[in-house]
């Protein structure tokens, strides 16, 4: 992808024609590369040979960098700087009389750098480069800050919406109950109460997920990296889901050898429970979930396969974004925060791993998590 070049406007003010022409020549094809964000900075140069026209030009052209000769026939450089109120540009002062007094006065008036005559084209470029980088960094910081604010705002707006939907649903049921729409028999309201409780639970899960996610995102999650048996952890986590799975007659099969890994246990629990909960939630009644753990060298793969409803090709790429819930006739009544896969993605990123998804709509999905370098060599972990 080719990004457009960043063009900085440069105004040169000097009464010597040779200086202006030389400066223009020297900067015209000059390009600075900023590798980190793959930006290119180039310059658009105009020159003026007296103070009056320069002051006018500064107001109309709004330059980014001003290269200013200190001594001009009608006014000096400091007077020019004084006459411009809102300085959004950086000034490089050129002077033949390199005196400390001038330097101090000019700095007070907002000069960024000094060049003393005579100077080479290289020296001019160096000074312009310094100014350009300073402008670039300040602007980049500002735009990153804006971007961050925007992302945060969007996140909070969606979160507010996601919290309001269950509230509205619960309130609606309560009003219907309050109005006794189904008569006086309590049993007629069982379904309404059940749905209300389910929505409250999903709201609670949403809040818990938000806490997990923000901890992971802010980098403030305290991790306790220790050696433990991955089979124990998966077995324990799966046991927590056994009632949930049994209610819908879904079998959980685990195929895993005892093996020691070095990681944070809460990370691994979050990872396993999110995949497992999805595999049950988006399964069919009487279906099954298989968890296969494969270890090669120090790498470990956790493979969660289900016999569920599957995911359409076009929905696969959205899957790991915040608050994404795939809506179709199968998922309509399934509750979820839309954050589970965002959370696991962040955990897997932390361990430098990757997640692979294969799915067939209507048949089932396979999520494979590959984590490099967390498996301990046999024997090492067991001694601890």
């Amino acid at each position, binding site marked *: 992808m080719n990004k457009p070049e960043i063009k900085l406007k440069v105004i040169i003010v000097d009464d010597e024609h040779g200086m202006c022409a030389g400066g223009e020549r020297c900067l015209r094809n000059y390009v600075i590369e900023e590798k980190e964000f793959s930006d290119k900075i180039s310059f658009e140069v105009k020159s003026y040979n007296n103070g009056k026209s320069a002051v006018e030009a500064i107001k109309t052209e709004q330059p980014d960098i001003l290269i200013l000769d200190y001594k001009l026939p009608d006014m000096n450089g400091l007077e020019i700087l004084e006459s411009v109120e809102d300085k959004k540009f950086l000034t490089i002062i050129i002077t033949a009389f390199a005196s400390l007094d001038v330097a101090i006065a000019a700095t007070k008036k907002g000069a960024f750098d000094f060049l003393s005559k005579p100077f080479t084209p290289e020296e001019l470029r160096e000074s312009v480069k310094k100014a350009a980088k300073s402008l670039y960094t300040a602007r980049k910081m500002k735009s990153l800050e804006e971007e961050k604010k925007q992302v945060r705002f969007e996140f909070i707006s969606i979160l507010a*919406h996601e919290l309001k939907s269950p509230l*509205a649903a619960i*309130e*609606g049921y309560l009003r219907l109950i309050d*109005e006794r729409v189904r008569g006086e028999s309590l049993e007629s309201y069982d379904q309404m109460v059940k749905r209300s409780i389910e*929505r409250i639970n999903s709201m609670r899960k949403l809040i818990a997920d938000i806490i997990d996610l923000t901890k992971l995102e802010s980098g403030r999650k305290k991790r306790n990296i220790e050696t433990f048996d991955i089979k124990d952890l998966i077995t324990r986590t799966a046991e927590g889901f056994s009632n949930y799975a049994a209610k819908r007659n879904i079998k959980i099969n685990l195929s895993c050898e005892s093996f020691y890994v070095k990681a944070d246990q809460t990370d691994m629990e979050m990872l396993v429970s999110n995949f497992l909960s999805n595999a049950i939630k988006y399964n069919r009644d009487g279906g099954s979930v298989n968890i296969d753990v494969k270890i090669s060298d120090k790498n470990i793969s956790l493979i969660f396969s289900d016999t569920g409803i599957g995911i359409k090709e076009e929905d696969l790429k959205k899957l790991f974004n915040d608050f994404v819930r795939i809506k179709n006739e199968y998922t*309509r009544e399934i509750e979820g925060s839309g954050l589970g896969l965002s959370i696991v993605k962040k955990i897997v990123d932390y361990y430098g791993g990757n997640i692979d998804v294969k799915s067939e709509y209507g048949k089932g999905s396979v999520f494979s998590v590959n984590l490099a370098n967390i498996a301990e060599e046999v024997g090492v972990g067991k001694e601890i």
Partner: protein
Amino acid sequence: MEKKRKILVAEDDSDMMEQMNIYLESNDYRVLKAYTQEEAEKIIDSGDFDAAVLDLMLENPDSGFILSHKIKKNFPDKPVIIVTSVAKETGVYFDKNADSNNWIKADAIIQKELRFEQLKKELENLFSRSK
């Protein structure tokens, strides 16, 4: 006995749908459920409904407007109510009366969280007007 009026309800939240269903049925209406714009379009094409209550945001942020436009083009006399929470969330209020270009083709716009009685009253109003 008078035949029950059929209300097309377009709403993607299954609980909200269920509640409208319970409430409207208890008030002697029949509810035709559409969870998506596409499902609603099928019912509109069939013409077999007496009024529509449309959530503004379904799979598209303006599904409700699109659907109401379609209804009013083919069945100008069938009452249409749009339900929206957009105003609360964005501060942008849709005011039917201020809509000089008349591009909102609905008879009423109700803000979420809607009260069921309010919905019932609006429907009764619109039905009595269209008589």
